[in-house]
């Protein structure tokens, strides 16, 4: 009951924030409000017991998205352009869609209803069979990496495609390809003592925490997506404080391209290895003599692939924006 009330309160804050984002003409305050929106969203996921999603929202929304939006904002004018507003059509369409959604919500099962289709369909089977077939405590990881491995492969390629799109559009600046991106931003915030000291203390722990999330994903909330985003957040912190130039020297654009493509290829290669060893595509049970060990190996390797791709793509997008002037 208390959780429900807190959830309702947070959802109403969420609505207020969303309306404010839409109404803001100053892009900087819209970016700041979208940071708050993402924090509220993560809290709601958290209250609904969806820890893995909340962790993704934390890493992407609060850490990386704000930085990417600010880096993009650097290249645009600070206020929203006044578009031609369709005075009658816009409110009419919005009202119609809102009414439809409210009408549809009456047909939705109530929160936590045991008779809901989502609880009746495959979820009981996952909960019952995961200890026997995959034997890892975090069932979300088992569903994501093993039962629905095909979907996740698709997601990884979507991430890769998005990254390729951004690198095509922005490139390395002045018509250069992304792999020859460089920057003359020498110092970043390194003239300011407090951020410098804080960042120097925090970066190693953020990277260590990302590795923990990556390789502990079977036992606790987390996995490749979250770990990649947290790793990128750590590198971005380094870049903000020590300057783009040094960061590009530590992880050159060429390496980022290899990471992005290599992660997706590693994932696909695990699938092909399954075929080569006499199973189906992305069937990990045949990877080792013992099916459960095979599942563990498969999940760890494909999570590594996911982590590599997410790290490579997010960091490339950040550099593509931030290295320009």
């Amino acid at each position, binding site marked *: 009951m208390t*959780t429900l009330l807190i959830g309702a309160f947070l959802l109403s804050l969420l609505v207020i924030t969303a309306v404010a984002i839409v109404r803001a003409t100053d892009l900087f*305050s819209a970016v700041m409000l979208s940071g708050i929106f993402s924090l509220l969203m*993560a*809290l709601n996921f*958290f209250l609904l017991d969806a820890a893995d999603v909340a962790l993704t929202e934390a890493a992407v929304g609060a850490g990386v998205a*704000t930085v990417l939006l600010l880096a993009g904002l650097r290249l645009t004018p600070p206020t929203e352009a006044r578009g031609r507003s369709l005075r009658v059509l816009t409110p009419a369409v919005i009202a119609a869609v809102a009414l439809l959604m409210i009408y549809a919500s009456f047909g939705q099962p109530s929160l936590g209803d045991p008779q809901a289709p989502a609880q009746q369909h495959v979820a009981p089977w996952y909960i019952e069979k995961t200890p026997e077939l995959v034997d890892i405590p975090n069932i979300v990881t088992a569903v994501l990496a093993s039962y629905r491995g095909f979907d996740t492969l698709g997601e990884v390629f979507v991430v890769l495609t998005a990254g390729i799109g951004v690198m095509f559009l922005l490139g390395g600046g002045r018509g250069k390809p992304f792999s020859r991106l460089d920057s003359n931003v020498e110092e970043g915030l390194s003239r300011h003592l407090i951020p410098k000291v804080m960042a120097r203390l925090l970066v190693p722990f953020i990277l260590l925490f990302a590795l923990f999330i990556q390789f502990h994903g079977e036992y606790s909330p987390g996995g490749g997506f979250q770990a990649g985003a947290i790793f990128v957040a750590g590198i971005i912190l380094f870049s903000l404080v020590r300057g783009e130039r040094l960061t590009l020297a530590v992880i050159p654009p060429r390496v980022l391209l290899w990471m992005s493509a290599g992660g997706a290829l590693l994932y696909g290669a695990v699938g092909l290895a399954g075929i080569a060893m006499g199973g189906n595509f992305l069937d990990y049970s045949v990877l080792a003599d013992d099916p459960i060990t095979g599942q563990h190996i498969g999940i760890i390797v494909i999570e590594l692939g996911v982590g590599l791709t997410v790290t490579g793509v997010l960091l490339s997008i950040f550099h593509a924006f931030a290295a320009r002037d």
Partner: protein
Amino acid sequence: MLLVAAIAILITMALALARALLGPSVYDRVLAVNMFGTKTVLLMAIMAFAMGRTDFLDLALAYALINFIGVLAVLWFVQESQLREQRRAATSDRGPPAGSDNE
């Protein structure tokens, strides 16, 4: 006890959101967002204990680590846009000599 703390944090969040909406200056909004992030960490920790899922504390830890980056990004953004404005002023004021040094 946890409930009282949760309510106090929720009120603080609402106040921080109000500051972020009202502004007026950049720094008000930055501080509001930072405060909102801190309260998120605290609320997550409290709810993790209230729901008996102490393993979810990982999430609060992740937020605590990452929250700082947003603030630094804003500082970097403000510094960069000031630099750019100076550069733009320097290139447009090339006609009258020493005109750009006044700022």
